[in-house]
């Protein structure tokens, strides 16, 4: 009798490192269905998707603009996941950072950029930390599952933003539900003239570098990784799991908050409803694709930026709806996830 049995057998390291590349291939094969649906040439589509953005400076810069918040949300999610804290709340923490940014930005009228910039950054970070605090404390002190609480907190802050925009912060002149513009001194400066690329990009790169350093080169990072991969053994070796997870969760929230303040101070200059367009959730995709490794997160964020820019190009050139980009992103995430797990097993013949 022939039987197939699945058994655990970790794939060699080099296989794991090419998974994302292979996943990209599979993803494009799957999404072929949706492209064929609108009756356009798939090869043209992929050209506009992946190659065209590199043919003009404008779209390359736009790619970096799109990638900017994803560096930060991706880093935030990866950082938390590494210690075994499943922070699904980057979306909410990002909005908390944005609220702080919108508020401070107005308060800072008349200050010099030298003062305003650090205040904005610290403020955004604190905003994220505050929004991450309750779920983190509940998890550490009372063992309440953080996934559900962070997810619910995302919905809570949507209504907080709505309240602010329809109530105290409503633009007094236009009566639109948007907050007043922030002071020009509080805006993140532009990196390249006549472009939308702002200081947030540098902030994102610095953050990626810093969390790489913390995770791989610091004692705290070692504790984090220990807690994340084998909490029992980490506790045995004297790691204070609760303290480690709490710190990681709060820092993760802070990083997501930075993404929020970056969007306010670098792109929108005021708070509006729905400005985030799922940046926090996309951060989970980015972190997954980057295999929770900061450098991988950087690359994945750029790639997501490429898909977003590419979907705009495809849309302009071929009339394919831009939402194809979101479909591709989500498919890519699911495929990558599945592959990471599947390579841990192999089929064995039995019987």
């Amino acid at each position: 009798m022939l039987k197939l049995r699945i058994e655990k057998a970790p794939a060699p390291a080099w296989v794991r490192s090419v998974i994302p590349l292979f996943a990209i291939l599979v993803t494009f094969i799957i999404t072929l269905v949706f492209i064929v649906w609108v009756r356009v040439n798939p090869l043209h589509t992929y050209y506009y998707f992946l190659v065209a953005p590199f043919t003009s400076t404008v779209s390359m810069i736009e790619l970096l603009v799109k990638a900017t918040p994803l560096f930060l949300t991706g880093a935030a999610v990866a950082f938390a996941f590494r210690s075994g804290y499943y922070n699904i709340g980057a979306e909410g923490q990002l909005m908390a950072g944005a609220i702080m940014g919108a508020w401070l930005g107005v308060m800072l009228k008349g200050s010099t950029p030298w003062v305003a910039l650090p205040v904005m950054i610290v403020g955004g970070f604190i905003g994220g930390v505050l929004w991450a605090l309750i779920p983190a404390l509940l998890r550490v002190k009372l063992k309440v599952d953080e996934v559900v609480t962070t997810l619910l907190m995302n919905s809570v802050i949507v209504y907080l933003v709505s309240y602010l925009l329809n109530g105290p912060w409503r633009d007094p002149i236009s009566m639109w539900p948007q907050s007043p513009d922030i002071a020009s001194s509080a805006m993140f400066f532009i990196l390249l003239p006549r472009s939308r690329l702002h200081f947030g990009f540098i902030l994102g790169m610095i953050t990626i570098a810093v969390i790489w350093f913390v995770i791989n080169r610091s004692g705290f990072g070692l504790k984090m990784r220990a807690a994340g991969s084998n909490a029992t053994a980490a506790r045995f070796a004297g790691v204070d799991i609760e303290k480690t997870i709490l710190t990681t969760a709060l820092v993760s929230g802070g990083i997501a908050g930075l993404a929020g303040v970056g969007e306010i101070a670098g792109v929108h200059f005021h708070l509006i409803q729905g400005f985030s367009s799922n940046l926090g959730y996309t951060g989970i995709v980015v972190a997954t694709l980057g295999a929770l490794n900061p450098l991988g997160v950087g690359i994945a964020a750029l790639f997501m930026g490429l898909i977003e820019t590419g979907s705009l190009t495809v849309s302009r050139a071929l009339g394919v709806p831009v939402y194809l980009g979101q479909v591709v992103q989500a498919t890519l995430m699911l495929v990558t996830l599945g592959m990471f797990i599947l390579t841990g097993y192999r089929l064995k013949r039995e019987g």
Partner: protein
Amino acid sequence: MPAAIEVNAMNVVKMKNITKRFGSLVANDNIDFDLRKGEIHALLGENGAGKTTLMRILYGLYRADEGEICVNDNLVNISSPKDAIREGIGMVTQHFTLVPPLSVAENIVLGATDGFLLNPKKIRRLVTEASEKYGIAIKPEALVRNLSVGERQRVEILKALYRKAKVLIMDEPTAVLVPQEVETLFNSLNQLVSQELSVVFISHKLNEVMAICGRITVLRGGKLTGTVEHKDTSEKELAKMMVGRETFGVTRQQDKEPGEPILTIANLSFTDEQGLERLKDVSLEVRCGEVLSVAGVSGNGQSELVKILTGLKKPTSGRVVLNGRDITGSPPAVITAAGMGRTPEDRHAGVIGDLSVAENLALENLDEYKKRGMLDRKLVREHAAKLIEEYQIKATPEDHVRTLSGGNMQKVVMARALSRKPCCVLAAQPTRGLDVGATEYVRSKLLEQSDRGAGVLVVSEDLNEVMELSDRIAVMYEGRIMGIIPALEASEEKLGLMMAGVLEKDETKIL
């Protein structure tokens, strides 16, 4: 005692030449076993003797590499519990497979229902009928989560019988029971065999085996020692069959003067979440320069003792004093800082597979490797390289611990625990699952520690190891210390009886 069984000596189950290997370990080596109709047949042996493995093969949880199984004289192929159930074999394992929020009746019929509809009245009636038929009292509508361990066990038994089991395998059924429940269980089992059912009773407790079983099959180290009739044997003979070896372990010369007490455990008690008293008033004293071993069959409180001493659990009452410092209920970091070198029972719960050897070695004393807040990676690597050489670990500092063999992993654990020259060493199951070379090495390292003047506390189920290493041996049974005897006075037979709960220390004089 059911002595009349021989008249109707039909074999309901016959296992022939069963061999089962796990990697290089031979868990069952060419074992024959047969079960007659209407008997309670004990399967006796130490931990790791292969009792449970043999029965898991019969129940289809494992597949034998060699050998055959006959049920009612028909050759059968049992490759899953489903097959076993079809052949009328039921098993009650140590870990109950019940669904706590469901009712007793629902648990019993789970997977054995006919049709799509579930009529609560009908299943309650069926279950009540079964309960009355077999004389096993249960409350069909009670939720399993509200039941005591003994009641849950009855549900498990009835679950097997409801599936028309004619053969019931009980895996260490008394390990989780209080004495009164044991009595109820024995009454139930006796009633079942009077209804022509057959029971396999897996145990390592001699008194229980003698109290209830008709025939007794003894396994040792994966091999069959023999099958004896109850009337032809005694506890003493069984103990010898169970633990006796041809050669005695080398006992060390006790030529050292015992030093000052370094670790004092006073009146330690621990009650677990289920309300079971796992440790009862345990007191021990480890002196500088000696090796004190805690021997015992697993599940008699050693795990809990180790967890408390390593800082993973807090005792219900009692005190632990190390080198003059009260470390009762302290977290691991404090206990390490106080001078305890700790190795865990399960080495996988001590090292982190996804981290490198060097990182694992540094994890316990991270503060020593910090330079301006950052990790001094050079120092970490040098420290690791030094320990790797000293402990002959076959790995580089960068290797992930996951990729190491068991022996090398244990060496990493030992190296970390011993590198700071602790004044007291706790080694739990230090050589479990290791090959001969690694075992020798680990034992010599432990002896080196006591020669250095540290107090060494070894917790082990391996009698050979206990005899070879120790100056004194404490035996644990059901959460209590049965007695502490000098290694020179210890024999395997004596220890075996103490471990089986037959002999207290004072009685050992008689032997």
